[in-house]
């Protein structure tokens, strides 16, 4: 007689119970499931909400001001694409117990590994600069000089990581994720028409004017801000640092899905705020949007500014950690947030070096900050396909992933996403090089 599996034993136990004990038993199992979910939850929510970084908030603000509610459906689509991509890093991290950089070195050798690491370093450092640009611009609205903002950010970001425990860092990061939802009350304050939002935004359609060059450019900017190379490295490294295992993968997927929902919600509410109050007003950045919103509604303007600062802070923390983890994995340094600074000196040194360098660039007098923000987004989008291709190859490695490798359906979806991004990022780069090309 074959021994009963654990699932079968539970099922048989439930069948022999009475009604009330059966309900109580189901309730206890459900609460246990939620308990595990809340324990595992973190990497997916943090990476997705950090994805709404300073550059992202700016892109959404400009999109709303230019096209109103018209592209809310597109945000939903991008959220789904981001979930699809990030879910793969959960499986990869939990199965291989390696960060993304180390996984590429291990599977594909040093040549491709160094290319990936150099890509990550360049895009991360450039994106860090845009985070500091966003934070200093946001705090300037309240009269705080950029130099003071940069120093405050260094102190906050340093304090977050130096306490020597991954779990503490995660809880602080989740707190900042909650602040990122500040755009929701901002949108409710302006009392937008739900009917308008549904008819103009939720139902897929092109905005008035149709498919113009400007529309294409903004669409590509939104794509570029939704999936970034650092996100792949960050989530996989947090999955490893958190110690997630095979049986935690299902919870990691739920975690990532919840994060994707939150990111779409934030993006949509920003579109609603600027779409209602700043429609047709040419704005250059989220800070610009906040300044223009202040005279219309002081609270909405303040919320947008606070949200921008929080987005930059969260983005900067995650991006610099992504790089530090990647270097630590490859160079063999101790590289866990569970190590203190004495145990992992090089890990924390790289982290602070990244922060200091990016913050300093923002303080250079006359630095073309708006131009930097624009070009950094284009460069990050251009380098994204290279990172995605390796992710798909790793997820198809039977020896590495076993039963958790990609299914055919997942491969079709992933490859379609990569091809689409290659085509669009080419067009995006060309439109930055030749602005009149798509007009």
């Amino acid at each position, binding site marked *: 007689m074959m021994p009963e599996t654990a699932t079968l034993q539970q099922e048989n136990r439930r069948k022999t119970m009475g009604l009330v004990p059966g309900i109580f038993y189901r309730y206890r199992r459900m609460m246990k499931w939620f308990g595990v979910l809340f324990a595992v939850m973190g990497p997916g929510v943090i990476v997705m909400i950090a994805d709404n970084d300073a550059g992202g908030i700016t892109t959404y603000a400009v999109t709303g001001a230019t096209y109103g509610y018209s592209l809310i459906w597109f945000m939903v689509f991008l959220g789904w694409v981001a979930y699809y991509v990030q879910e793969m890093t959960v499986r990869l991290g939990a199965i291989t117990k390696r960060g993304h950089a180390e996984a590429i070195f291990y599977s594909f050798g040093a040549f491709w590994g160094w290319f990936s690491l150099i890509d990550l370093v360049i895009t991360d450092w450039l994106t860090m600069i845009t985070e500091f640009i966003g934070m200093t611009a946001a705090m300037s609205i309240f009269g705080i000089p950029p130099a003071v903002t940069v120093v405050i950010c260094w102190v906050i970001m340093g304090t977050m990581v130096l306490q020597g425990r991954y779990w503490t860092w995660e809880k602080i990061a989740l707190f900042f994720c909650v602040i990122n939802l500040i755009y929701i009350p901002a949108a409710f304050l302006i009392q937008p028409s739900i009917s308008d939002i549904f008819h103009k935004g939720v139902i897929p359609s092109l905005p008035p004017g149709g498919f113009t060059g400007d529309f294409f450019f903004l669409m590509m900017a939104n794509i570029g801000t939704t999936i970034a190379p650092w996100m792949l490295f960050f989530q996989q490294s947090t999955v490893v640092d958190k110690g997630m295992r095979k049986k935690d993968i299902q919870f990691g997927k739920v975690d990532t899905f919840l994060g994707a929902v939150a990111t779409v919600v934030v993006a949509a509410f920003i579109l609603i705020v600027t779409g209602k109050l700043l429609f047709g007003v040419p704005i250059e950045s989220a800070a610009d949007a906040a300044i223009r919103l202040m005279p219309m509604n002081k609270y909405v303007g303040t919320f947008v500014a606070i949200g921008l600062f929080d987005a930059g802070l969260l983005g900067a923390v995650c991006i610099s950690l992504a790089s530090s983890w990647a270097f630590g*994995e490859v160079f063999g340094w101790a590289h866990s947030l569970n190590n203190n600074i004495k145990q992992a000196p090089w890990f924390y040194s790289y982290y602070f070096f990244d922060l200091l360098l990016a913050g300093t660039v923002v303080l250079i007098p006359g630095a073309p900050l708006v131009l930097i923000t624009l070009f950094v987004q284009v460069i990050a989008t251009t380098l994204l396909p290279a990172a995605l291709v390796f992710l798909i190859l790793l997820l198809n490695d039977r020896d590495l992933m076993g039963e958790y490798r990609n299914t055919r359906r997942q491969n079709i979806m992933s490859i379609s996403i990569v091809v689409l991004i290659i085509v669009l990022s080419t067009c995006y780069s060309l439109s930055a090089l030749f602005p009149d090309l798509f007009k």
Partner: protein
Amino acid sequence: MSDHPNDVRSQPEGGFLRRAAWQFTDITRRYRTPHSQMTKALRWSLMALRIYLVVLILLLVIKFASLVH
């Protein structure tokens, strides 16, 4: 936590650049043999993609520099 087993290694004496060069060659040696099989077609496709992306990035950098000046 996945600390690398070779975290404490003997390094050559010398300045920062010499030790950095040693680390670079050590990592390249350690990961010299890939564990995943890649067909020639895949390798060439990846290389073509990589060259294509590098050219795009260079053009963007040149454009950025021209706009700044």
